[in-house]
C-alpha cells in the first residue's frame, strides 16, 4: 500500500527542488520584476531639472491604467549617469505602453531628499554640508535612507522630496478598474487631469511644473494603501492630492502621519479620514449635512418629518444629529426608515411614509436608491416634500422621472455641480474640465472633489513660495482660508477633526434645470461637540 502510494507520488524528491526553485524565482521576481516592468515602460530620455543634479535611478511606477489608451499617464524614469542634458521641455514620451495624451511626462528624481523630518529652518537658506552635494550622488535602486541633505540655495533647487527647481511631483489615486470604476474613476481622473493641465499652462506652481503618478486602488483598501506607499517610498512624491476613493482615504491616515506626507483633498465621508494632522478633507461632514438639511426643512415649515436612509451604520452619527437639529427647531422626526442597498422596489418604504403623512422627508440615499424611490413615488402618485443629500447629485436622478420630481431639492459642499450653474467660479471650473478633459466627463460631486483637491494644493503650494517643503505646506494649509472655484471657503483646525467648510449650497431642480437657492451655513459651526469628530 505504501509503496503503491509512493509510486503515485514518486516525485517527492524532485518536487522539493521544484518548489524551492519556484519559490526563489517568485521571490526574486518580486524584487526584480518590478524593475523589469519599468524598463518595459520607460520613457525615452529622462528629464533632468538642472545641471547640478542627478537623476536617481529608482523605480518609478505607474500603476493601473486608464480607461483607454491616452488617458493613462505612464511615468517612468530610467536612471542615467551623470551629466546628462538638462531638458525640461514638454514633449510627450514614446512609450511601449499606451501612449499618454498631452504632456504627462515624468520628472526625473529630484536630488537627494532633504528628509521628511527636516525642519523648515534647515531647508531654508544656508547650504548644508551634510554630505555630497552637486552631481555626485547617483543612487540606483531604492533610495537609501538618510540620504545627505543637499540643500540648494534658498530660492530654487530641490527643497524637499519630490521637488526640484523645475518640477513638483505629486501622487494621486482613483478607482480606475473594477465594477465601480464607471461611476467614479471614469470622471474623477479626467477632472483631475483637466485641472492639472490648467495649473501647468498657467505657469505651474511658482514656475515649477506639476507632474504626477497615479495609482489604481480598485476600491480595495489594502491595494490603495499599497499604492500610496509605493508613491511615497518608490516614486518619492512630494504630496498626494487630486484623488477620489473614500475607502483608501479611510486607511492611509496613520501611515501618512508617520511618513509626514501631505494628503490634500480627501472627501470626508468615512470616519477615519478625520483627525489626521497630515490629511486634509474637503467640505462639511455628515453632521453638518444633517444640521443644514434640518435647518432647510424647518425654515420651509416642514416640522413633522421622516428620514429615509440606507442601512450603512457609519451614518448613525448623522442620523442622531438630524434628530437633535429638528427637535431644536421645534419639530419632530416621526420615523427613521432604513433600507437595504439591494432593495428593488421602494413601495414598502413609501407605504410607511405615506401612513405617517409627514410634512417633509430627508432622503439620505445613494443615487441609484434615490432613483428607485422616485420611481416608486411616481407609480404611487405620492410625492412628499423632500430634500435629497449630496450623493444624489448626478442629473440622472431627477431626470429618471421627468417632471414628476420637480421641485427637487438637494444640497452639497460645492457651490454647484451642474453643467448649467450660473456661478462664475463653477463655470470656470466646468469650462476647464470640458476643454481639457473632453465633453464626456460628468462633472458632479465626486469629480468636483478631485478637481478641488488639486486646485487647493496648487493654491496652497503657491502661497508657500519657492521654498516648498512639506512642513511649510502643512503650516500654510492649517493657517489659511482657501477659495477654490467649486467649493466654499475652506479652512482647517490643526487637529483636522472639524469640517473644512460649514457652508452648503442648496439647489432646486425645476424646469429641467438646477436653480441655485441661498447657501446655508451650519448653525452649529462653532461647537466642536456637535460638528467635529
Amino acid at each position, binding site marked *: 500500500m505504501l509503496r503503491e502510494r509512493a509510486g503515485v507520488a514518486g516525485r517527492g524528491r524532485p518536487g522539493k527542488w521544484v518548489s524551492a526553485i519556484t519559490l526563489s524565482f517568485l521571490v526574486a521576481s518580486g524584487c526584480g520584476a518590478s524593475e523589469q516592468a519599468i524598463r518595459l515602460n520607460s520613457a525615452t530620455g529622462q528629464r533632468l531639472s538642472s545641471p547640478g543634479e542627478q537623476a536617481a535611478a529608482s523605480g518609478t511606477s505607474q500603476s493601473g491604467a486608464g480607461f483607454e489608451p491616452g488617458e493613462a499617464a505612464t511615468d517612468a524614469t530610467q536612471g542615467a549617469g551623470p551629466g546628462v542634458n538638462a531638458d525640461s521641455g514638454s514633449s510627450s514620451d514614446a512609450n511601449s505602453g499606451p501612449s499618454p495624451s498631452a504632456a504627462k511626462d515624468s520628472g526625473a528624481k529630484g536630488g537627494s531628499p532633504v528628509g521628511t523630518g527636516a525642519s523648515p529652518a534647515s531647508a531654508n537658506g544656508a547650504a548644508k554640508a551634510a554630505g555630497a552635494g552637486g552631481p555626485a550622488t547617483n543612487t540606483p535602486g531604492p533610495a537609501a535612507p538618510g540620504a545627505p541633505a543637499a540643500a540648494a540655495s534658498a530660492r530654487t533647487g530641490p527643497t524637499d522630496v519630490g521637488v526640484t527647481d523645475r518640477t513638483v511631483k505629486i501622487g494621486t489615486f482613483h478607482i480606475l478598474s473594477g465594477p*465601480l470604476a464607471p461611476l467614479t474613476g471614469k470622471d474623477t481622473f479626467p477632472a483631475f487631469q483637466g485641472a492639472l493641465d490648467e495649473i501647468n499652462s498657467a505657469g505651474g506652481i511658482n514656475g515649477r511644473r506639476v507632474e504626477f503618478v497615479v495609482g489604481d486602488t480598485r476600491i480595495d483598501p489594502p491595494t490603495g494603501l499599497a499604492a500610496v506607499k509605493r508613491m511615497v517610498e518608490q516614486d518619492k512624491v512630494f504630496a498626494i492630492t487630486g484623488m477620489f476613493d473614500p475607502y483608501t482615504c479611510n486607511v492611509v491616515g496613520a501611515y501618512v502621519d508617520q511618513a509626514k506626507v501631505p494628503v490634500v483633498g480627501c472627501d470626508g465621508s468615512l470616519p477615519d479620514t478625520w483627525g489626521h494632522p497630515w490629511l486634509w478633507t474637503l467640505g462639511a461632514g455628515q453632521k453638518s449635512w444633517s444640521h443644514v438639511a434640518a435647518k432647510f426643512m424647518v425654515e420651509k415649515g416642514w416640522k413633522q418629518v421622516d428620514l429615509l436612509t440606507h442601512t450603512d451604520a457609519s451614518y448613525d452619527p448623522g442620523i442622531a444629529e438630524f434628530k437633535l437639529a429638528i427637535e431644536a427647531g421645534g419639530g419632530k422626526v416621526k420615523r427613521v426608515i432604513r*433600507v437595504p442597498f439591494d432593495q428593488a422596489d421602494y413601495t414598502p418604504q413609501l407605504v410607511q411614509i405615506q401612513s405617517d403623512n409627514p410634512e417633509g422627508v430627508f432622503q439620505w440615499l445613494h443615487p441609484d436608491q434615490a432613483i428607485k424611490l422616485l420611481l416608486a413615488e411616481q407609480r404611487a402618485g405620492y410625492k412628499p416634500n423632500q430634500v435629497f443629500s449630496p450623493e444624489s447629485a448626478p442629473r440622472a436622478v431627477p431626470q429618471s422621472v421627468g417632471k414628476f420630481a420637480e421641485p427637487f431639492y438637494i444640497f452639497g459642499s460645492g457651490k454647484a455641480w451642474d453643467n448649467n450653474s450660473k456661478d462664475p467660479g463653477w463655470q470656470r471650473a466646468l469650462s476647464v474640465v470640458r476643454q481639457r478633459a473632453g465633453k464626456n466627463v460628468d462633472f458632479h460631486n465626486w469629480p468636483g472633489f478631485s478637481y478641488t483637491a488639486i486646485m487647493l494644493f496648487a493654491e496652497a503650494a503657491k502661497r508657500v513660495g519657492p521654498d516648498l517643503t512639506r512642513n511649510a505646506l502643512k503650516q500654510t494649509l492649517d493657517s489659511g482660508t482657501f477659495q477654490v472655484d467649486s467649493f466654499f471657503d475652506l479652512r482647517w483646525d490643526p487637529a483636522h477633526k472639524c469640517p473644512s467648510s460649514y457652508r452648503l449650497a442648496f439647489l432646486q431642480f425645476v424646469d429641467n434645470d438646477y436653480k441655485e437657492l441661498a447657501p446655508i451655513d451650519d448653525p452649529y459651526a462653532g461647537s466642536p461637540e456637535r460638528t467635529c469628530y
Partner: protein
Amino acid sequence: MRTVSLLLAGAATGVLYGLIAVGIVVTYLTTRTLNFAAGAVATLAAFTFGTWVQDGWPKILALLASLVLFGVGGGYLTGGVVMSRVRTASETVRVAVILGWTLGIAGVTALLYNTLLPVPALFGEGSIAVGRIRLTSHQFAVAVTSVLLAVGLSIFLRRAWLGLALRAVAEDRDAARALGLQVGRVEAFGWMCGMTLAALGGILVSPLVGGDIRTQNLLFVKVLAVSVLAGMERPWLALAAGVALGMAEAYLGGSGGAWTTNIDLLPFLLMIVGLALGPVLYGNRTREAH
C-alpha cells in the same frame, strides 16, 4: 390596510429573491454545486440583453439570444468543459473552481461593458394596481413568471423523466450510469439549465435592482439564505421562502426600533433558524463523505 399594502409590496420584492433562489436550488439539485457564478452570469446576460435592445433588436429576440448564448452556451462551457474536469475533486475544490470562473466572467463583463448599463424592462414600463399599491407591469409579470417557473420546475424535476434523470445523475453518478443514463450529457444539460435560469433571472431582475456590484453581492447573499431556508430541495419552496423574506423585510423594516437598523440581519437569522430546525422540518439531510 396599510399592513396588507406593506405585505403585498414586500411580496413583490420577495419574488425577486425567490426567482434567483429557484435558479440556485435547481442548479444544486442537478449538479450538486452551489452556483456562485450565477450572479456574474446574470449581470453579463442582462447587460448583453440591454445592449442588443439598445441596438434595436426586438426584446424577445434579444432575450432568446441571451439565453441561448449564456444559458446554453455558457452552461455547456461551465459544465461540459470546466466542471466535468474537476468532477472527482472535493466540494471545496469545485467551489473554488466556480469562484475562479466567476471572477473570469465578471472580468469579461467589465471589459465588454465599460459603463453601467441600464437594463430595459422586458415587460414594459406601465403600471398595474394591485390592491392599494401600484407595481410596474414588469414587476407584476416577473412575479407571475416566477410562480410559473417555480411550480413548473418542481413538477418537472419530480415527474418528468428528464428531470428525474438530472437529479439521479447528481445524486449518484455511478448508480445512474448503472441505470443506463448518459451521465456526461445529462450533467452538462444540468449546468445548461442552471445557467439559463441564472441568465433569465438577471434579465428579469436587473431592471429592478440595478447593476452595482455591491447591490448584487447583497442580493446574492440573501438568495443563499433563502435557498438554505428552502432546504435546497424544492423550487417552489425556494420561491415561497423568498416571498416570505420579502414580506418580513417590508413589515419590519420601517417599524422603527432595532429591526429598522438591523434589517440586513433578517435573512441570516431566518437561515440559522431554518438550519437548526432543518432536520425537524425536512428530515435528516446530513450525508457523510462516502
